[in-house]
């Protein structure tokens, strides 16, 4: 389940005031809340920047390897930046039976990226997710945080065209 990408080499700016607020104010600086802290950091930066993880390790007194372990164990974490537009295709059972596998393959082939990957121009990221709890309207995709029920290949082509036109 882990993502095998290496930690990104470009160092982005991280705002330590933001990190302090997340670590101390929101979660009381508690080691047990590390996963939630990482989620909040990821929501802020849309991925986990390396300097932020160094800082987290230092503040919590946790070896960086432990943080790397958590970041690669859980599927929702990403160590590389995400594209401007995010497409989640549900590959849960209900959606799979209604053809979501074909949609993933279609987008992957069209953009030349694997699920989890981002196009080189950083416009588009393709992700899969296991069930969004909207199985009744399968297959479901989420594009830039909006749910699209009963999606099909044509709909996905529209997203790609729009993203490219940006």
């Amino acid at each position: 389940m882990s993502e095998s990408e290496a930690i990104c080499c470009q160092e982005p700016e991280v705002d330590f005031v933001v990190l302090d607020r997340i670590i101390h104010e929101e979660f009381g600086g508690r080691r047990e809340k590390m996963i939630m802290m990482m989620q909040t950091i990821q929501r802020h930066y849309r991925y986990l920047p390396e300097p932020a993880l160094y800082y987290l390790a230092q503040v919590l007194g946790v070896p960086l390897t432990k943080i790397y372990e958590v970041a690669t164990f859980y599927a929702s974490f990403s160590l590389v930046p995400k594209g401007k537009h995010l497409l989640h295709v549900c590959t849960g059972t209900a959606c799979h039976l209604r053809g979501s596998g074909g949609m993933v393959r279609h987008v992957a082939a069209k953009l030349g990226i694997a699920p989890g990957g981002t196009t080189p121009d950083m416009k588009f990221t393709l992700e899969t997710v296991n069930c969004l709890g909207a199985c009744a309207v399968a297959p479901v995709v989420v594009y830039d945080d909006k749910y699209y029920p009963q999606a099909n290949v044509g709909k996905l082509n529209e997203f790609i065209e729009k993203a490219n036109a940006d």
Partner: protein
Amino acid sequence: MATATSVVPDLAWTKKISSPHELADYRQALLAGMDPDAPCIRVCCGTGCKAVGSLDVLEAMKAAVAAAGVDVKVMPEVKRTGCHGFCSRGPLLTFQPQGLFYQRVTPGDAAEIIQKTAVGGELIPRLLYKPPGAKEPIAKVGDIPFFAKQTKVVLQRVGRIDPFDIRDAIAAGAYEGLAKVLSGMTPQQVIEEIKTSRLRGRGGAGFPTGIKWESCAAQPGRHYVICNGDEGDPGAFMDASVMEGDPHAVLEGMAIAAYAMGSDRGFLYVRLEYPLAVQTLAAAIRQAEDLGLIGRNIMGTDFSFRTSISTGAGAFVCGESSALMSSLEGKVGRPRAKYIRSTEKGFRDSPSNLNNVETYANVPAIILRGGPWYTSYGTERSAGTKVFSLTGNVHNVGLVEVPMGTSLREIVYGIGGGIPNKKELKAVQTGGPSGGCIPIPSKFLDINVGFGKLAEIGSMMGSGGMIVMDENTCMVEVSRYFINFLVEESCGQCTPCREGLTRMKETLTRITVGEGREGDIEMLEEIGTFTNSFSLCGLGTSAANPVLSTIKYFREEYDAHIHDKKCPAGVCKPLFYYEIDPETCTGCGLCRKRCPAAAVEGEKKKPHTIHQELCIKCMECYRSCKFDSIRIK
């Protein structure tokens, strides 16, 4: 993901409830202020309906009410609620007091609904539900078979109350069970009541809840009460609907459990993919704390219980009890061997009780109405009701609560309305990714769904996912799908699971692309049996079920893939192609329009053809054809 417009009502005007009796007084006061016959329109805002735009409908309805400018007294209140259950017909509206039911409502319908139905008392036929094959639509909720055939215990308030308003929940009876416990039951009496009810865990294994509580209570030290809202089964949403629609039932059940085990601290572990559930639970905790129903000195007694929410981070294995507790501690979720029970040494190495969302949601009703009442539902070995999420190739997709022991036939045909598009029912898959496929048509259609019966035929209850599969489902591909899911979700620490699953995946993938070999089936059986026997945790010990059950019941389909290099169901791409039957093709051009690869060619009103080298086999043409002219070859 999209967030709900959550306006949490201000409860500051109410003081804390200072005794269990005062809850009853408060409820009476709430009920006195509510007219049961007052018009009210409930708009379903569960995840399924939200995905098809119910929030827009909610806003449009509110605006339409405001714009209608009729006397406020007769104007219906427009309420947001959790999931009504009938997800495939969303967005849904119900009207009180008449009990009318409108489905597939759009924001554009709002003004008409207010003018015609709310003011004029007239029905709008196009918004009524018409069962498949029926001539006349049905106007009332109570007359629709999908609802009429259900028995609601866990879901009694889901879809009726506004999950963001605790007053609604209290008026409907929330926290009465807790009040009963706190007005004189001893912890031992609570445990006895749960034991009498024969409630079994709804999270998968079906462990007797009363016994679990008893053994946890007997341990020394600080106790923790944990709720498993991880719902990892992809294609199931029972727990989501309970958390989203009636979060107080879960909190109340946890508080009662905490009282029984002498615990003062609880945790709710909720899947990251359920943002709405996190919102409803957080609002519910805050409001219950404000009223003194959760927190310090609950209802003025010595009992204190605080609880908070932790979210998962996208790992199926974290639904397993020891992995979940490790994840709660901020670590990776790797299960540990079962010789140390969590009830002895769990979260923070302390005695911890973990139950599923639905298990807790059953508790208040059992306390209130008694264990014997609960056993009046269900069977000897499986008491009570169970919520299933009915999905796949069935007319009525949604949430279904029935007494344990209800037949598959009743669920799939009676409530589910049968299979759409005149297809044949082929199998029902239960138990999530490590469950099994039950072949149908066969005598199995009449089996009574319960823990024991499903295990007997090689599947399992699991948490209640029920996926209906029609003739266009390839069982080899289904089994590859589940094994692939489990390969990705296996934590990788034990060899049988890690290697066994990987080898099975390789073999199944080969078979589905037409490279199956003689002996593959036997090898799958051998690896599968080994994986199921020697893995460390529940993920591995049930991982081969999808393979073993499909081989057992659908062996001929494996044979067709391996020997004839054919996929009879038309799913495995290299093993079939589509062809248009020139005899029945009317040349309507629908498939040509739908084809995203421009592979269909033909003149209007003349039989069309498919260019095989362009066809991506996406199934669009097959699905869209109204004349059944596209054939799988």
